[in-house]
C-alpha cells in the first residue's frame, strides 16, 4: 500500500503519522506539500494530519481546505480512493465539504489533551474492518475545536446510514455526556462519507500505536486499511 501525507503550513502531526504508518505497516509513505497539485502516482491512502494549519485562524481548517493540493485530494476521493483526516485533517475535510458537518469549539471552550475511549460503531469501512463491532479502543484526543455539529435532519441521515464510525464512551463502552469530552452531537468522534472511502476523526490513532507511548489500539486501525487494500478493496475505488 502506498500512503501520502499532506503537509499544510502549520501541520504538526505529519511526521507522527508518517512514523506510525511506517512503523506499523512498513509501507511506502510520501510527504506531499500543500502546494502540489498532484498526488504521487499510485497513492492508495491520503492522510490529512493533525496540527494547526494556518494557525487555526478564522476557522480551523478553513484556509487549508482551499490549498492547491485539495483539488487532487477531492479527485482521489471522488474516484473512491481512501482519504483520512485526523484532528485538523478532519476539520479540513468538513471545511472542504468532503465530509458533512462542522467542528466547533469544545464545550469547555478550552483545548483538551487526554486519552479517550471510543467504541467502534461501524466495522464495514476500509478503516475499521479488523475491529469488532462495539469494541472499545483508546485513542488520545488533543484539540480545541472538536465538537462535531450537524443540523438535526442531516444528523439523522448520518446515523441511519451508519456514518458515525467512532463514538466517545466509557471504558466499559457506555455512552453518556460524562464520557463525551467536547460536547459532540451524539458523542460522535469520527464519521465516514456515504461511499465509505473518506473518514474523519478527532482522536489520534497515530498516538496509540506503540506500547512505549501507552497503547497499541491504533495499530489495528492501520492494519485494517492495509488488509482492506490487500483483500481487493480496489486500489483506486471501492466496490
Amino acid at each position, binding site marked *: 500500500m502506498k500512503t501520502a501525507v499532506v503537509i499544510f503550513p502549520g501541520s504538526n502531526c505529519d511526521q507522527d503519522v508518517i512514523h506510525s504508518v511506517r512503523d506499523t505497516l512498513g509501507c511506502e509513505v510520501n510527504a506531499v506539500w500543500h502546494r502540489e497539485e498532484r498526488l504521487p502516482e499510485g497513492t492508495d491512502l491520503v492522510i490529512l494530519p493533525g496540527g494547526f494549519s494556518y494557525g487555526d485562524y478564522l476557522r480551523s481548517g*478553513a*484556509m487549508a481546505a*482551499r490549498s492547491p493540493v485539495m483539488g487532487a485530494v477531492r479527485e482521489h476521493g471522488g474516484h473512491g480512493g481512501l482519504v483520512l483526516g485526523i484532528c485538523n485533517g478532519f476539520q479540513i475535510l468538513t471545511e472542504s465539504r468532503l465530509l458533512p458537518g*462542522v467542528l466547533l*469549539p469544545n464545550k469547555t471552550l478550552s483545548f483538551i489533551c487526554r486519552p479517550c475511549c471510543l467504541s467502534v460503531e461501524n466495522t464495514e469501512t476500509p478503516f475499521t474492518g479488523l475491529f469488532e463491532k462495539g469494541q472499545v479502543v483508546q485513542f488520545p484526543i488533543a484539540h480545541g475545536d472538536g465538537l462535531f*455539529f450537524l*443540523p438535526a435532519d442531516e444528523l439523522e441521515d448520518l446515523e441511519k446510514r451508519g456514518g458515525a464510525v467512532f463514538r466517545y464512551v466509557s471504558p466499559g463502552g457506555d455512552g453518556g455526556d460524562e464520557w463525551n469530552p467536547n*460536547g459532540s452531537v451524539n458523542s460522535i468522534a469520527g464519521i465516514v462519507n456515504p461511499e465509505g472511502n473518506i473518514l474523519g476523526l478527532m482522536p489520534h490513532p497515530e498516538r496509540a500505536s506503540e506500547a512505549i507511548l501507552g497503547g497499541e489500539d491504533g495499530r489495528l486501525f492501520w492494519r485494517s486499511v492495509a488488509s482492506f487494500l490487500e483483500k481487493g478493496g480496489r486500489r483506486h475505488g471501492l466496490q
Partner: protein
Amino acid sequence: MLRHVHVFVQLKEGVLDIQGKTVANSLVSLGHDSLGSAKVGKYIQLWIEADSAAGARKEAEQMCDDLLVNPIIEQYRIEVEGE
C-alpha cells in the same frame, strides 16, 4: 479607490453557540442581571480596491463565499462605507 468594507458574521439560528452562552453566564455572574442573552460572532474589516461601492460589495461577497464564512453554520451582513 480603497474602500472600507465591514463584514459581520454570526452563527445561524439553531447552531450551538457555546461561546455566547458562556459569555452570557459570566456576565450574569459578574452581576449584569439585565442581560437576556449574548451571541458571539466575527467582525471582519476589509480594505478593497474598487471603482464603486457596489463593486466593493460584490467583491466582499465573493470573499465571504470563498473563505470568510462557513454557510453551514454562519450567515453574514456587509456594510460598505460611502454606500
